[in-house]
């Protein structure tokens, strides 16, 4: 079903495909316990990150190595041909001739889709500007499924930067594949979801409410997805200064939370979640980060071998 496919946006995956990725990820957790396998022996993955990344790049590389494959990594811009002025299209053509799958991150929006048009090898979008981050959304949904056994019938809050944050956007898209009870989109007025996301929610018939007061909505939530305010994407630094630190999750804030609430965060966090929350049963963000490897192993296996 997924063999040879490009993964540019989570919207292009069906629920059955997402479930297949999750079942495969469950198996990958077992594979990891045994130290890995050689199911992708002989395959080469290219990672081309034109924007900084820690977790996404390293977890893709770890996933490939754990499955017996190899990777090549496009060096930092200053050390590659990009410094000599090579355009994106030519860089992708080169990587396509070397690798069986290409992982792309770029600040330019639509870059991964364009790469997929150029390359014969499948392309996986590891983030394009503020638009999509589909593999992060898969990891987020997988974490919810591991915690609750299902993604349906939950009250889900998404907090923070819903305008410029691609992880939040892809998470919202991902949730609409399932049947949430209600979606609470909590942000300062200036960081509300973008028009295309609002249209998408309406077209899927998802019940959602946009609001600003976290403490009011918190007692209703089963899942709270927290995101960082995306400083680097603000056109005006003064606007960033106005909203930074708008929300902070502390133990005190969580006093009114449901007992089984889980808190997710795509990381890195800055100040949105206080360190004293890490030790509470609500904190699932480190577990979520850990699932980056098995979920990406599942995706690479399904795309390269079926």
């Amino acid at each position, binding site marked *: 079903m997924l063999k040879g496919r490009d993964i540019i*946006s989570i919207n292009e995956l069906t629920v059955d495909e997402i479930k297949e990725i999750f079942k495969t990820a469950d198996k990958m957790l077992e594979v990891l316990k045994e130290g890995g396998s050689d199911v992708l022996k002989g395959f080469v993955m290219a990672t081309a990150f034109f924007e900084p990344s820690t977790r996404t790049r390293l977890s893709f590389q770890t996933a490939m190595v754990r499955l017996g494959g190899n990777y090549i990594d496009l060096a930092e811009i200053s050390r590659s041909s990009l410094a000599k002025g090579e*355009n*994106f*299209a030519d860089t992708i053509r080169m990587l396509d001739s070397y690798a069986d799958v290409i992982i792309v991150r770029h*600040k*330019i*929006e*639509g*870059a991964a*889709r*364009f790469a997929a*048009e150029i390359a014969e090898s499948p392309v996986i979008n590891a983030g*394009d*500007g503020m*638009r*999509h981050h589909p593999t992060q959304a898969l990891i987020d949904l997988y974490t919810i499924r591991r915690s609750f056994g299902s993604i349906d019938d939950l009250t889900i809050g998404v907090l923070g930067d819903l305008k410029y944050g691609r992880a939040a956007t892809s998470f919202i898209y991902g949730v609409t594949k399932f049947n949430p009870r209600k979606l609470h989109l909590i942000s300062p007025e200036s960081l509300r979801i973008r*028009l*295309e996301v609002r*249209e998408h929610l309406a077209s899927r018939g998802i019940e959602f409410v946009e609001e600003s007061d976290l403490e009011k909505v918190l007692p209703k939530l089963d899942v709270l997805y927290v995101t960082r305010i995306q400083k680097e994407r603000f056109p005006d630094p003064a606007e960033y200064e106005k909203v930074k630190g708008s929300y902070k999750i502390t133990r005190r804030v969580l006093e009114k939370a449901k007992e089984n609430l889980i808190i997710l965060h795509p990381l890195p966090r800055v100040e949105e979640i206080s360190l004293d929350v890490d030790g509470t049963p609500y904190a699932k963000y480190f577990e979520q980060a850990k699932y980056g490897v098995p979920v990406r192993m599942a995706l690479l296996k399904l795309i390269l071998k079926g």
Partner: protein
Amino acid sequence: MNEKQQLRVRKIKEGTVIDHIPAGKALLVLKILNITGEEGVVIAVVMNVESRKLGKKDIVKIEGRFLRMEELNKISLIAPTATINIIKDFKVYSKQRVSIPEKIKGILKCSNPSCITNQDREPVESSFTIISKTPLKVKCDYCDQIMVQKDIVLQLTGI
């Protein structure tokens, strides 16, 4: 067009009559076609005349000019009800309605400066999918940016 209306403007010998333009949009149609009046050809613009279908409509007649498909597509974006009559030797040689295509390639520029289609030296053409015809709304196939009728008219005509 009825007899009474034909009296307002004389027939053209060869060229194009764009009929059933929504009332008040004729000047935008001329702008889209880059017709300034300095071409030296006969151009007739009739605005706000009665129409059975539309209540009121505009008509544009252009002597000696036949429209390309790309131009028809552009007209469809701001005047979706328009009909195009090709006139040869004073007679209607062919008549067709414009229709908004499912995809618009190359005509519009994405309003998102960070879109891949707005980058220099990348061999990629803009491409949009129509998500609503009335009111017109399109979505960039690369970056998902939505553009609405107002943005599109502004871009195509500068008005």
